[in-house]
């Protein structure tokens, strides 16, 4: 373990987080809110601390795979801790565990909240919540990489540990340029959404917040009334949720006019699943009294499907009261998640494709034991270690899931609530069903289950391995 380099990276992270906090600071200034001083002080303290720590440059800058995992896991823990300070100190969220829950939920782009009512929450706090989504969506270390010329190629380990998907690849030879390109695409798409929402008549504050939350596929809402927006705005949000769930490599390829490469099998399956879900859910819910006709049912079905498969977790309609088919399908979509290399969470479409193709191959081999079958995706063979990693991912996923579910039973809530609470946090979605449904919130749980859910959100966002490795003794042995 390169501890000094780990501390150095945490120092850089603190400085950057301090800089991020200037956004809510500015919001507080615009709306003349009393929390201005608090945000400014925390931001400057973080920046100063970061500068002091980075004064001590480690001589040995070599990072290995293990350091990559540990640095990423610790960074996210540290980032959540510092990020929750404004909520806690200002008393907007009086309990520390709750403040931590809210911040982790923000950075991991989950969007699960413990707040009952948004009306008394200052605007700067709401802005900080949404902005944590934006930062957490593409990954804060990727952001740092885009700005700082960190030495060597070992940063690839950081990028691999932070970015979602079974195999992370670069767009261009340099990690730094790759990180920059990703953020440029991310930024432009976000800006586009803000503009379209403004055109749709949404107030500025809401448009920015909603766009941040959509971009990171987060799902915190900023309006006490929920989503009281025009159908145009709702549809814009639907489209952008789905867009942010697409692998950003595809956009890069589209920009380079490589449409065939960009329109890969993952994207096709992803869009296919969405189309199927929207159609069947619309048919299933169109006669409900909450909708006036099929058109409105379609709009809300599309929004809900897009929101849940991309793991955003916005809700325009209370899908908790929909028929069993829709409820079940929506929960299944939560597992599927978005594409690898997007800002979304969940298991990821490409991982499922590899999983099912591998299953198919193995079944064939059982009947023809001597057959050699190579797993291919988009014409490229999938490496054995990628397949292995996918299998291990599933094993870990189930283990974390089962243990979390058992721990949640401590509070004695019903099975559907607990089951969907774990689904919604481990896949970074937000709302589940019943007591944690779209109109309810996570304050129904006591402190210990909340900690379990915090763990699930972090584990889910970092795709299990960094967090599990952080807790494994083998990582810390010499």
């Amino acid at each position, binding site marked *: 373990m390169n501890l000094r380099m780990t501390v150095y990276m945490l120092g850089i992270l603190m400085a950057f987080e301090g800089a991020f906090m200037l956004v809510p600071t500015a919001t507080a200034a615009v709306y003349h809110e009393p929390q201005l001083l608090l945000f400014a002080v925390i931001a400057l303290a973080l920046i100063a601390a970061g500068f002091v720590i980075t004064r001590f440059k480690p001589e040995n800058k070599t990072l290995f795979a293990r350091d990559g995992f540990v640095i990423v896991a610790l960074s996210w823990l540290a980032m959540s801790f510092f990020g929750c300070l404004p909520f806690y100190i200002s008393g907007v969220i009086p309990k520390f565990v709750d403040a931590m829950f809210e911040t982790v939920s923000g950075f991991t782009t989950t969007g699960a909240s413990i707040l009952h009512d948004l009306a008394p929450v200052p605007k700067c706090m709401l802005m900080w919540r949404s902005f944590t989504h934006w930062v957490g969506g593409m990954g804060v270390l990727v952001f740092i990489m885009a700005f700082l010329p960190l030495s*060597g*190629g*070992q940063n*690839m*380990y950081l990028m691999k540990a932070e970015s979602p998907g079974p195999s992370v690849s*670069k767009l*261009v*030879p*340099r990690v*730094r340029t790759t990180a920059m390109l990703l953020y440029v695409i991310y930024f432009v798409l976000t800006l586009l959404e803000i503009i379209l929402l403004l055109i749709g008549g949404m107030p500025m504050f809401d448009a920015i917040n909603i766009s941040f939350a959509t971009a990171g596929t987060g799902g915190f809402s900023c309006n006490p009334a929920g989503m009281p927006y025009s159908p145009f705005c709702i549809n814009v949000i639907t489209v952008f949720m789905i867009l942010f769930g697409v692998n950003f490599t595809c956009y890069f390829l589209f920009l380079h006019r490589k449409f065939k490469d960009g329109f890969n099998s993952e994207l096709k399956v992803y869009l296919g699943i969405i189309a199927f879900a929207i159609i069947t859910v619309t048919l299933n819910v169109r006669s409900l009294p909450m909708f006036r006709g099929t058109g409105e049912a379609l709009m809300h079905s599309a929004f809900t499907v897009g929101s849940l498969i991309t793991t955003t977790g916005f809700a325009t309609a209370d899908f908790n009261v929909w028929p069993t088919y829709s409820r079940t399908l929506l929960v299944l979509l939560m597992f599927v998640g978005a594409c690898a290399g997007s800002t979304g969470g969940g298991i990821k479409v490409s991982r499922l494709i590899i999983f099912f193709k591998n299953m198919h191959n193995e079944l064939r081999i059982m009947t023809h034991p001597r057959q050699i079958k190579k797993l291919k995706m988009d014409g490229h063979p999938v490496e054995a270690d990628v397949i292995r990693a996918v299998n291990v991912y599933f094993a870990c996923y189930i283990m974390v899931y089962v243990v979390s579910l058992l721990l949640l039973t401590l509070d004695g809530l019903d099975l559907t609530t607990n089951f969907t609470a774990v689904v919604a946090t481990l896949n970074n979605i937000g709302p589940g069903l019943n007591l944690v449904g779209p109109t309810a919130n996570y304050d129904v749980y006591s402190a210990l289950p909340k900690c379990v859910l915090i763990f699930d959100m972090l584990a889910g966002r970092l795709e299990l391995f960094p967090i599990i490795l952080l807790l494994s003794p083998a990582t810390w042995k010499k």
Partner: protein
Amino acid sequence: MNVIIVGCGKVGKVLAEQLNEAGNNITVVDINASRVNDVADRYDVMGVIGNGATHATLQEAGINKADLLIAVTGSDERNLLCCLIAKKAGGCQTIARVRSPQYHAEAPYLKEELGLAMVINPELAAAEEIARVLRFPSALKIETFVKGRIELLKFKLPEDSPLCGMCVRDIAPKLHCDVLVCTIERGDEAFIAYGDFRFEPKDVISIIAEPKNAFTFFRKIDFKAKSVNDVIIAGGGDITHYLCSALEKSGIAVTVIEKDQNRADALSETLPGVNVIHADAINQEVLMQENIDKAEAFVSLTNIDEENILLSLFAKSVSEGKIVTKINRIDFDEVIEHLDLDTIIYPKNLTSDLIVRYVRAMKKTIGTDLETLYQIIKGKVEAAEFTVKEDSALTAAPLMQLKLRDGVLVAAIVRDRKVLIPRGSDMLQKGDSVVVVTNHLGLHDMNDLLA
């Protein structure tokens, strides 16, 4: 610059590392996925898995936007095919490694017809370097600058050398010869030489001089400056083939010990003047029979590094002669340096050095006036050759009045084909070729020399 490297072997890896550090965008291609991933994880480069001699793979590696393709796979044919396709598909410059003597004989034709920018033969490069050292056995390493007009020689001070205890500035008045000391390596440290630097035994010193002055200098400090007269070579591979041809021309008596019958036959056929012994060189009796203890030079060129090291250690224990060792693996170079084995040749590094030098010179067309660049001490000190294209602050005052950066030494000036070892009162002029020794790596422009 966008560079594609096909083949992720030892040379490919070194190239990826060095060219990446020099600020190029590197894409590596190899058919072996684990090799590609290894390089892509370790250095900041992109990896593409596939056969680099196919158009589809090269497309994926971005051949359209590439400025240079370097083919260093294990096969000559694949390297050439790769360059040919790259040339047609992307119109970039291409460098191929071609090691077989048959193809290499046709290198000029291949270069011309296939439009190759450079054909690299590591075995030939190694043989040439060994031949240079054998002609001047007191040096550990010899490089040439400005079309051979200047030599850069590296040698190690023995305990009883008259130089020990002298200062750098004493050399000119006491020895009356025009050489310039550039760098001194002591243990793991490297210094740029200044006037009051005092020599100690076991220092490794690099000097720059005209060949004839170097000769006088070595005679004056009681070094052998004459070429060796006979040499024993263990192992009869391609390097041996090229080396024997070069040594024969200089009239040096060569004995080759090769254990493979067919190879020994072939060598004896192509090089009738060479004394070929069919025996395993890992045998003290054989070596003593061939009078290794009296040979003026011993070169170990078998295919196994460990054997070469053992052979050289043995030769060192029984003879006073020059010893040259070839090492293929570059991962443990520091350990091997500590064995004190006289001259060590790394064909892999020679290949990558030549290519890196070419790439740096290619960049020159993109706005720098750097001609060539040599690493004197790996990763620490470089010698760069510049051409003074126009009058500037550098040509305005004598050298001693110029405010040069620390760690910059103007080592030689070539003006009208004459070599000047510069003194403080000399001035640079338009049209001069200047050799600069510096520990600021990666200089591109002469104006970088000023503080």
